[in-house]
């Protein structure tokens, strides 16, 4: 098998139940129809079965990783390099990564891949104001379940996305019937192609956003309630984050 030395990487984030998997299933079907070899990786906290679904439905290399005690977006940073090698060795030219999208402070997108956030129009017109870098650092915001809400709410939702993320392209789709998916496929294929050297190593990549301050005493297992019991970067109700300790 001759391995391709270039690969398109698409990372998909978004809150639970917005239809990330449905969108990716339609994209996968259309990529395969266009003659592409696709690999799929799902990153979740403690349960996922999308890998089995994708394997069964499309017969493509698919796997999952549980982040467990690690934050899912951090887990993405850790495993993405291995995942690219895995997909490369499997002879694939597109890798689709679906993340759990739990944290509204991080975003999983990388500088040399395509970043896509999936939001549902049914989640209320103010949702775009709440999801942070997961939306503002994406290339495309995919809005699902558009047939469920009034035209009025659909238009307000769209305007709110543009308020917080002016440069993010918006695609409204009906993931149930695959309406509006074709342009997403074009976006994935037009994104930067990651190159691999003769040894099969991928070019270096960086996370797009700056992760928030992550290490705190709670992270390392101190469970007492109240900032007085903690040190390092802490936060009180009536104050901004401040440093406590030596």
């Amino acid at each position, binding site marked *: 098998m001759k391995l391709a030395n270039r690969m398109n990487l698409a990372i998909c984030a978004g809150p639970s139940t917005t239809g990330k998997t449905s969108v990716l299933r339609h994209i996968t079907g259309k990529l395969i*129809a266009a003659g592409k070899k696709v690999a799929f990786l799902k990153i979740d906290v403690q349960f996922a079965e999308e890998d089995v679904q994708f394997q069964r439905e499309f017969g493509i290399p698919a796997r999952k990783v549980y982040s467990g005690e690690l934050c899912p977006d951090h887990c993405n940073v850790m495993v993405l390099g291995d995942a690219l090698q895995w997909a490369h060795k499997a002879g694939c030219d597109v890798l689709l990564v679906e993340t759990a999208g739990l944290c509204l402070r991080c975003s999983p997108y990388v500088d040399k891949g395509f970043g896509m956030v999936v939001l549902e129009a049914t989640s209320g017109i103010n949702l775009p104001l709440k999801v942070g870098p997961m939306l503002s650092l994406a290339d495309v915001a995919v809005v699902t379940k558009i047939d469920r809400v*009034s035209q009025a709410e659909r238009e307000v939702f769209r305007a709110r996305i543009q308020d917080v993320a002016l440069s993010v392209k918006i695609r409204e789709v009906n993931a149930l*019937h695959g309406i509006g998916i074709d342009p997403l496929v074009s976006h994935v294929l037009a994104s930067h192609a990651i190159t691999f050297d003769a040894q099969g190593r991928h070019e270096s990549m960086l996370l797009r956003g700056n992760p928030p301050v992550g290490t705190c005493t709670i992270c390392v297992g101190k469970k007492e309630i109240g900032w007085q019991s903690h040190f390092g970067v802490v936060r009180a109700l009536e104050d901004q984050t401040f440093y406590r300790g030596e």
Partner: protein
Amino acid sequence: MIETISILAGRNKKGEEEPVGRIDLKMGDVVSVVGPTGSGKTTLINDLELFAYGNTPTGRKVLIDGVRPPPEYGEDPALNPIALITQHTTFLSDLPVGEFLETHARIRGGDVAGAVQNTLAFANQLTGEPLVPTIRMTELSGGQTRSLLIADAAIICNTPIVLLDEVENAGIHRGRALELLRKYRKIFIFVTHDPRIALLSDFRIVMQSGGITKVLRTDDSERRLLEKVTRIDDTLTGLREKIRLGAELNEMELELGGIL
């Protein structure tokens, strides 16, 4: 201002060329799309929404006023040509109706108060249950919701096409709706198998196996059926209303309706 949206033939699921070379949808047209499940109605909507130009599975092309639309039409969802109303479409907001319509009208710009007033007046002609600005969206009945969805799409939205996907059984006055809609410079597409709406349409796009197989113009012989179909339909609506009110039915209704 858009005058015409045209659909140029593509291929059906079997890869065969569609026999209808070109369909022109003009402002003010009322069109029905008919065909069994899986016949390709959804992919037709997809092609229109994306301004397809040989870049969707059907290979169809969509023209605006006879020419290929500029690329930003496919990129900017604010230029999406279709306001879509399906059986599942509803309002999520719990604002009072007046405030809700204002929020929508404001992002569209122009005369906000006038748009709200006209929308309510329109909706009130479609439903028998009065709609007032102070009622909360969550308190609307099914019929009021459909009426408001249609009125909002026809008046506040600026999409050239309003697509109503099988919403005929939702407690609205269909005959009146079509009569009113015709006054707006929009293309109304009904995905429907309702004989009354089909007969009131200018033409029907017939679909099978993912392709458009023919276009049926509503001719005089079909239009002659309209009067009878309307009578049958109104009679059945009357019977339904009686059942709803807990009344007993008798032959009188059928006689009055001219069915017997």
